Structures are given as structure tokens and as C-alpha cells.
């Protein structure tokens, strides 16, 4: 075991244990949070009073913020990243950083018209013909 020589794994552990046990109480509290947030997301989308319901972007941001909160609960507690070693953390965070970096691609799509490409339909078209930038529908 590790009683000989130096223990290099201390560097990656950062005081954490790979085999942390989540207590039953924590599991139940997190579960309560998840179900509450689920009810909140449905309530915000379906039962929101009229003037607010029409605000597309704030409502979408709210729905996504709730989804991110739920994702954080699952990743931090159930997937154990909160109690994980530094190595586990860097792999887990790396994936989500990559996910948000993907959306940098939207810069291209939002600033440049699409080239029409021939599809399998008879008329030359694409899912995004050139005039959709001015006239999306």
C-alpha cells in the first residue's frame, strides 16, 4: 500500500476521497430539490401569468437556468464531483466547458447568410436558404 515512499496521489486528491459515501439524508434533500425544480420549470412554462408568458427570451433563460440548476445538483451530488479528486473534477468540468465552447459556432451562423445547397427535393433548397436571414419563416 502507500506506506512506502512518497504518495504522489495526494497532489491530485486535494483532500478528497474517491469513495465518499453520500448520506441518505443528502440523497433525499437533493431529490427534493430536483422535484421542486421540476415543478418550477413546468409552472414557469405553463402556468405563468400572461404578460410574462409572452417574454420569449427571459422565459427561455429561466427554463434553462432551472435546467442548469438541476444539472448541477445531479453532477455535484449524485455523480459525486463535489467530493471527487482533482483529477475527476478536471475531467468532469472539461466536458461541460467543451459543451459551451461548441456554441461559439453560432457566431458564424448569426453573422453570415447561408449558401443554398442542392437537397434531395426537386427544387434547389436547403434547410437554410439565403433569404431566411431576412425572412426566417
Amino acid at each position, binding site marked *: 500500500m502507500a506506506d512506502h515512499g512518497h504518495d504522489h496521489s495526494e497532489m491530485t486528491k486535494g483532500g478528497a476521497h474517491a469513495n465518499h459515501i453520500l448520506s441518505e439524508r443528502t440523497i433525499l434533500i437533493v431529490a427534493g430539490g430536483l422535484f421542486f425544480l421540476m415543478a418550477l420549470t413546468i409552472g414557469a412554462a405553463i402556468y405563468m401569468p400572461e404578460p410574462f408568458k409572452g417574454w420569449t427570451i427571459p422565459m427561455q433563460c429561466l427554463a434553462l437556468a432551472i435546467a442548469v440548476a438541476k444539472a448541477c445538483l445531479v453532477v455535484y451530488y449524485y455523480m459525486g464531483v463535489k467530493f471527487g479528486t482533482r483529477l475527476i473534477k478536471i475531467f468532469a468540468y472539461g*466536458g461541460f466547458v467543451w459543451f459551451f465552447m461548441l456554441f461559439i459556432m453560432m457566431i458564424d451562423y448569426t453573422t453570415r447568410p447561408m449558401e443554398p445547397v442542392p437537397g434531395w427535393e426537386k427544387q434547389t433548397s436547403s434547410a437554410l436558404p439565403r433569404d431566411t436571414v431576412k425572412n426566417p419563416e
Partner: protein
Amino acid sequence: MSDHVAKHGDGPEVYFQYEDIDQQQESYVVGMWSFLVTEVMFFGALFLIYTLYRWKFHGTFFGAHEQLNWKMGGLNTMVLLFSSVMVAFAVHFAQKGKTNKQLVCLGVTLLCAFGFLVIKTFEYGAKFDHHLFPNHSFSYADPEHHESKSWWDEALPAALKIEKHEQEGNPKNARLFYSIYFTMTGLHGLHVIIGIIAITALMVLIKIRSPLITDYIPTELVGLYWHFVDLVWIFLYPLFYLIPR
């Protein structure tokens, strides 16, 4: 109850390339996470496609999403969240060495997974009958097909039925919405099926006291996978079923 992880027999063997059992177990978890990162990349591209077309064709996407049954989607969210909680308990009991409780939790997870697929079948069945599957028979905003009845809709309990909405928007863009919907939820469903296979295999190995299961790590890894499946659905649900106008 002690906070130390229970071990079966002499506990797991430490292989020669590791300094101690902690390092070995850490590398299992890191391995699983690197697989999950490839899954994030895989679904990430699809979420990007969704974002792009939703941004371009918001009006039609809103119209098309009103055909989806948000109550069924919500029920599925509840089923998956509950299964995730059960998996968390399964890992907890695996760490404490309580095999019977662990098996019960995994069994409930399995039931939830099948429940999810049954609910999804009702949703997909109705979409097929209403000609909303994006193949050659796709038809949107066509009164003849819109009025068509579907057994999958009729069979639902009243509490799960939604009011019928007009099919609004450009049929071509609506087709795009349904392509993305079926691709993303279909791939998610495939992950659920893979999860079912993994959980069943794990339960069998635990039940027959396989020498492959020496500690809680196999349960932890299957659990990570299942939480990931839940994670994807957490985003799919608001993005497809709850689009604001």
C-alpha cells in the same frame, strides 16, 4: 454505522500499476468520466443544431412544439428523476455492503427505465398516427391528417391529455423540428435501453456473486452512466416540450 466503504471478502485487488486502492478506484471513475465527456460532445453537437434552427425558425418551432404532450414529457421527467434518486441509493447501499437493498434500488431503477420507454412509446405512437414522423408520409398543417384519430391518444387517462392546438407555421420547418425531436429523443431512448442492459448485467453479476464485483465501483460506474442519461433529459424536456412563445 461506520463511514468506511464496505468490502466483499478481502476487498479488491490493487493492480501493480497503482500505488493504492484509492488511486485505482479514482482511475476507474476518471475513465468513466472521459467516456461521458465523449457523450457530452456527441449530444453537444445535436444541441447546437437544435439551437441554430430554433433561432432561425422560432415561430414554427413554437407551433410544432404545441403538438407534443408536455404532461407525458413531465411524467417522464419525474420517472427519470426518481430513477436517478434510486441509483444514488443503490451506490450508497453498495458502499455500505447492503447487497439486498442495493438490488432493490437497482430493480426499481430498471422498472423506471421500462416505464420511461412505455410512456415514450405512447408519445411516438401518436406522432406516427398524426403523420408527424418526418418520413415520406409527413404532413403538417393539413386538416385531413390533423383530424386523424390515434389510439395512442385515446388510450391516455384524461389527466394526461392535452388540448388540441392548430398546427401553425411552415410545414418544411416543422419537419425540421420533428427531425431534431426524433433524433435527439430517439438517441436518448437508445441510451435508456443501453442503461437497461447495463443495470440488468450488473444485477445478475451481483446476484451470482461474480468475482468481477469486488466492491461498489461497478455500481458507481453504471450509476454515473444513468445519471448522465437523466442529465440529457433534464435539458431535452424544457427545450422540446416547454418552448415559450
